[in-house]
């Protein structure tokens, strides 16, 4: 195609189309209006008008996690851009590919404290993988191409492109996007690992008597499901997932153990502690798993497979680092691993499971959060996409949902952003039209972003929202009980809205459940309803999530529920 003279806005839209983008989450404003002015020429780009830019960021994140594609969001300069930051920080912590395009005040006004001016490239430095301020329309195509490439390759992450208002309007020659050259000499990431590293890891695996795989989010990002399963089965290695690694292996698999750490299953934490080898795959030894690093899994050697060499030896000393893309590394590693059985060790873990029934729900007539998640899990047969906020409901969802399909667990693990659940579920649904999406919400987080229900309704997205409503910031109540002598401050909502009426106000079907026996019929009814649903599950007011390893401690301090 011969070069054409286009405006900056057109160049951006053409680049987005060429990148395969079909949905954008955003809110317009003065500085980004010229870009919106070109959207009508690109009907392929479906724009979802969000109610808050935080929602746009989380929706792009949810879209990306559910589809594996890059999520895209738009915001204007100043407050629009600063509102995106929580969404970007979430994507950064959890390595999610997101491209954010923000409008900026005109070039002549930059640095003058102009109306709605914020130095957003400065403000987002620590929460983006990379960012750009583009000062010439002629640089736009290359910048968008680089941004998508940087966002989705290596260890993925968010990339922000800040574009002054008049750069959208400036005209420039646009070449065929496929021929646009990137200029990234400083951007490197490993693909395969050096053979010596793989061999060293294989040796440790072949020598191990009590090996455990700790499979993290990297397995999901790299889509290494078959390779992980092959490794586990070939050498009969039990698989522990990190919180974000959940759904990387079917929970029906006999070698699946659970997830460890602060609120993980006791037997998963104990398996890590008693292992003689931990094979961490795409996991970063987060403090919620490690606790006290000096006392973490002291009986074991560690193999650490990660694409980011800065993760090696960051939190935990590693004996065999393997730096490369998880899927490629496992393809290199699996042939070097000897077929083996660890019958006694696997039996021992089964024994731990029966000794420590972490998933047993206490006998009660009251409705508990666990009952709700169990109900959703059984009705959806573990096939739904589950999105959560942060807090007790998140931990119950992680514990009690039986994931069978990969990439179906979306949760703000690293940043821990309450309010993620409403817009991220919307984004996931936008990217996966035929799939059932259940958002397990806390009543606290739901109220942070519930305005996006309007977006859900407008775009006919059939998301099912389950509010685990205890009229409390439940995890705050729990911490104040456990670590602040029961001194309850600001943990209770005494004037929560009527969530059923609220749903109806958004023209969404609302239902309420107060009894255990109503859970399954209501979940079924919600599934059968063609549109979005909000279910207000009124659960026990004060309850604690167990097991619990207090922050910074070890498995020795693990507390289990007195049953």
């Amino acid at each position, binding site marked *: 195609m011969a070069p054409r003279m286009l405006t900056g806005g057109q160049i951006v839209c053409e680049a987005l189309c060429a990148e395969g983008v079909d949905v954008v989450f955003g809110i317009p404003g003065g500085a980004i209006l010229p870009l919106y002015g070109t959207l009508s020429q690109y009907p392929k780009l479906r724009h979802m008008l969000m109610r808050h830019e935080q929602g746009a960021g989380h929706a792009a994140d949810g879209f990306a996690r559910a589809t594996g594609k890059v999520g895209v969001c738009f915001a204007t300069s100043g407050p629009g851009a600063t509102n995106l930051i929580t969404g970007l920080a979430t994507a950064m912590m959890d390595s999610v590919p997101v491209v954010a395009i923000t409008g900026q005040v005109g070039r002549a006004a930059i640095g003058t404290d102009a109306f709605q001016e914020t130095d957003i490239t400065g403000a987002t430095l620590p929460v983006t993988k*990379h960012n750009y301020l583009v000062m010439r329309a002629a640089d736009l195509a290359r910048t968008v191409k680089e941004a998508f490439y940087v966002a989705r390759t290596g260890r993925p992450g968010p990339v922000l492109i800040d574009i002054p208002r008049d750069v959208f309007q400036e005209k420039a020659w646009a070449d065929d996007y496929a021929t646009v050259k990137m200029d990234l000499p400083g*951007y490197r990431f490993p693909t395969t690992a050096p053979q010596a590293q793989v061999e060293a890891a294989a040796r440790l695996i072949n020598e191990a008597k009590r090996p455990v795989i700790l499979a993290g989010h990297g397995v999901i990002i790299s889509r290494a499901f078959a390779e992980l399963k092959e490794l586990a089965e070939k050498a009969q290695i039990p698989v522990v997932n990190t919180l974000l690694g959940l759904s990387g292996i079917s929970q029906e698999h006999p070698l699946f153990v659970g997830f460890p750490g602060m609120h993980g299953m006791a037997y998963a934490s104990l398996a890590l502690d008693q292992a003689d080898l931990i094979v961490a795959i795409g996991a970063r030894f987060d403090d919620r798993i490690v606790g006290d690093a000096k006392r973490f899994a002291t009986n074991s050697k560690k193999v650490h497979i990660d694409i980011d*060499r800065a993760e090696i030896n960051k939190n935990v000393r590693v004996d065999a680092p393997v*730096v490369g893309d998880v899927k490629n590394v496992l393809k290199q590693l699996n042939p070097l691993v000897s077929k083996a059985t660890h019958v006694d060790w696997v039996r021992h873990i089964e024994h731990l499971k029966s000794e420590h029934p972490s998933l047993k729900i206490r006998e009660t007539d009251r409705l508990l959060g666990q009952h709700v998640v169990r109900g959703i899990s059984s009705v959806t047969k573990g096939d739904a996409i589950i999105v959560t906020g942060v807090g007790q409901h998140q931990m119950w969802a992680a514990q009690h949902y039986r994931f069978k399909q990969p990439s179906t667990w979306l949760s703000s693990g690293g940043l821990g952003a309450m309010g993620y659940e409403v817009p991220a579920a919307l984004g996931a649904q936008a990217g996966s039209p035929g799939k059932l999406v259940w958002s397990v919400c806390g009543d606290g987080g739901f109220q942070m972003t519930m305005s996006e229900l309007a977006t859900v309704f407008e775009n006919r997205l059939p998301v099912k929202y389950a509010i685990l409503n205890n009229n409390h910031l439940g995890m705050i109540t729990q911490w104040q009980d456990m670590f602040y002598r029961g001194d309850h401050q600001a943990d209770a909502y005494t004037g929560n809205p009527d969530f059923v009426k609220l749903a109806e106000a958004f023209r969404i079907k609302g239902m309420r459940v107060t009894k255990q026996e109503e859970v399954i019929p209501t979940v079924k009814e919600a599934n059968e309803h063609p549109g979005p649903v909000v279910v207000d599950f009124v659960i026990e007011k004060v309850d604690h999530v167990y097991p619990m390893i207090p922050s910074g401690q070890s498995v020795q301090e693990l507390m289990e529920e007195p049953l």
Partner: protein
Amino acid sequence: MTSPTQSPGPAIVPAPFATTHSRVVTALVYDKPGVLARISGLFRRRGLNIASLTVGPSEKPGLSRMTFVVEGPENIVRHIAAQLDRLVDVIQVEDITDKNTVWRELALIKVTATPATRTEVLNLASIFRVSVVDVGAGSMTFEVTGDESKIDALIELMRQYGVREVMRTGKVAMLRGTLVPGDPDGSFRVKNGVARLAPAEMAGGDSGSV
């Protein structure tokens, strides 16, 4: 009312990093706005102190070379080259702390020198191969180049006359030109005239760079 200096005050808080460790890192970076902010932000987020920093144009147009001396807890400081390598604007980065390097620092030192002491000051300073770059009515300014300890020694020596002002560039460092396997550091080889880290050092593997 007691003045602040008379009050006993709280006990002196120990330095934040009792076990401060320092690393010397060189980086080839884009010469454009915001690059230094990205790098210094990375140090700041990890609570690291930049003991010295020098920046200047490199042999390649559009690229600058930086030398940092970074201080902080050992486990964090040792990761700094790997962290810097993640930045897209950093083309190349090397932790040269334990490598075979040449390094220099330049300092300008203004010393009190009256007509009575001028000769004595100059005689002492000349042992350090200084250049006199300025003489005033009551002072002299020396330029001195060398390693850190040499400059420290000269400053200490001049204190008896009165050191009015010191300006130091901080360390600039470079790998030695001839690096073959078997050099004391053992981890370098020269390929096409460019010293590269041996694969084991990179801990990387095939690069997907463009």
